[in-house]
């Protein structure tokens, strides 16, 4: 029995470059030890195993067009993610994937693209940003709104700076708590939406962040005239298997691992309104 035949068996990978993004967050390049890296779509995730500690679902944060390894941005929030975030170049780990649904970067061709990220939610959106910017001429206006707790928590700082200098992307960053050096926006990210320029009748919105942030963002987008069918969010639930067999990630009739994580808002809006569903 090989790993290719059994989706429960992780493949061996090793850590390539490591970039410490913030105090508790690192981006790891993961290189396959055997065979080529499988292709993936923006929005999909892998199951990463720290041997002897456990396994956790983490979205890809790298460019799907680059073929060498996977990039995952990991925040230390528990035993497994902590063990992963502390890995150094050369360390071995296990990987299963890719799993799940993708951002609608193909469907959005010809339309305005509004990307709204909260906190670590920027990581699963970054592959979509790469795809849109790589074929920038195929889209209308491109807007990126990003909210974090504080200026210290801003991810991909150098890259954000490069994107901000582009004249064909509108980027706004807002923080919940400013420090004395911060001269930018303060407040929650949905408040930025009415200020931005896009055609609500012809916009695809891709939203990722805490569930409450995604609900308020969807409401603000809806008020601005974007229909729920054009809003996509990436859901998070406990996952043990990633292949629809462990039952943990159920969200109504859907399994977030295979029917998500990227889901069209109109299909789940009524369930999102139910507490503890």
């Amino acid at each position, binding site marked *: *029995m*090989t*790993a290719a*035949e*059994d*989706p*429960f*068996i*992780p493949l*061996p990978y*090793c850590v390539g470059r490591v970039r410490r993004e913030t105090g508790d967050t690192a981006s790891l390049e993961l290189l396959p030890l055997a065979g080529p890296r499988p292709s993936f779509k923006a929005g999909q995730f892998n199951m990463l*195993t720290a*041997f*002897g*500690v*456990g*396994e956790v679902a983490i979205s890809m944060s790298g460019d799907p067009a680059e073929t060498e390894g996977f990039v995952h941005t990991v925040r230390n*929030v*528990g035993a497994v*993610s902590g063990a992963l975030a502390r890995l150094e170049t*050369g360390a*071995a780990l*296990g990987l299963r994937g890719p799993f799940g649904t993708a951002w609608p970067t193909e469907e959005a061709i010809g339309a305005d693209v509004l990307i709204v990220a909260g906190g670590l939610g920027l990581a699963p959106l970054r592959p979509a940003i790469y795809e849109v910017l790589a074929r920038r001429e195929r889209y209308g206006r491109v807007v990126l709104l990003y909210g974090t707790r504080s200026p210290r928590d801003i991810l991909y700082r150098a890259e954000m700076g490069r994107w901000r200098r582009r004249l064909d992307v509108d980027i706004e960053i807002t923080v919940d708590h400013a420090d004395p050096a911060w001269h930018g926006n303060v407040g929650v990210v949905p408040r930025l939406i009415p200020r931005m320029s896009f055609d609500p009748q012809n916009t695809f919105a891709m939203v990722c962040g805490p569930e409450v942030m995604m609900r308020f963002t969807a409401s603000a987008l809806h008020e601005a005239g974007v229909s729920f069918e054009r809003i996509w969010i990436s859901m*998070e*639930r*406990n996952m*043990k*298997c990633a*292949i*629809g*067999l*462990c*039952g*943990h990630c*159920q969200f*109504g*009739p*859907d*399994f977030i691992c*295979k029917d998500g994580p990227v889901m069209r808002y109109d299909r789940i809006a*009524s*369930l999102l309104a*139910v*507490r*503890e*569903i």
Partner: protein
Amino acid sequence: MAQDGLSVGVKAVIGREEIGALIAALSARGWRVLGPRVRDGAIIYDDVAGLDDLPAGWTDTQEAGRYRIERRTDAALFGYAVGPHSWKRFLHPPVERLWQARREGDKVTIIAEKNDEKFAFLGVRACELAAIMVQDRVFMEGPYPDTAYRKRRENTFLIAVNCGEAGGTCFCVSMKTGPKAQAGFDLALTELIEGERHEFLVEVGSEAGGAVLADLPRRPAAPEDIAAAEAVTARTANAMGRTLETEGLKELLQGNPEHPRWDDVAQRCLACANCTMVCPTCFCTTIADVSALDGTAERVRKWDSCFSLDFSYIHGGSVRKETKSRYRQWMTHKLAHWIDQFGTSGCVGCGRCITWCPVGIDITEEAASIRADSGKCQEGGNGRA
């Protein structure tokens, strides 16, 4: 083997003693024979070596929150309904190693499990056969089949035993799963007891079943034998302990996530997870990674329950903190979302969740109660269109 076997659909009659010969024939062919036994005051499933291991002359009485075994006046081998075990514990074991990893220097080698055991299940009820087919859909018919389950399932020999007794919490008639096994078995038995007569009508359900039956002393079934067997299951069908109205049930539950009955049941539910452990279709698992000092690590898969707080934990807290939302998840999944996910209800009407609930919560009563006053609540559904 086909030339000396009996073809599918053939019916024959064997004596009570031939059940021992059947166990021996299966063992001789390399199957590990599992069947009913009396242990710790219950009829459970474990290895059986011969006729003497079977629960001869025992029955069970069941009600919500109550299970007792009692003596029968006859020597029936299968004169009970179902106990706390189901065949799930063999096909989808409570604890199962998925793989081991060994580290040598920088290199990590992952070793898969073999799963080459061959099971023969003796005494599979019609509802349990239906439950196995439900889990077949879950584990084998999705985009990622479960390799270990599939290997075990393909090597399993199933001997159904049609029910001669309805348990007090049974409702297989409502779920259209019993009490007579219709398909999916290798052999199906109906126990015929009348005065001094104690025989079994045997029906061949597969080529493998026909080959095994061909080894046993038997006589062809006469029309009276077949009629007697039909009468047994007809009598059982008329004695169901419970009913569940399934018409529109999916829409009813998906359309009522805020029904006050969920608060009501949460006042009684202990969130103990018994219902999910005894359910023959509940499939949820968690994983545990364990490492040893010698550099090996392994991943173990264990049954889990949507009634635990941990089940829905993501950093920041559990999604389903209240018992109300956990009971709602279990019952709505079982009776409604399952149909969206796997094209079948997740309930087979075996009644175990009612019997083994320490406070006697009855899924049929909860569903009926939501149906009785669903008019007050929102219309529409949360299922897939």
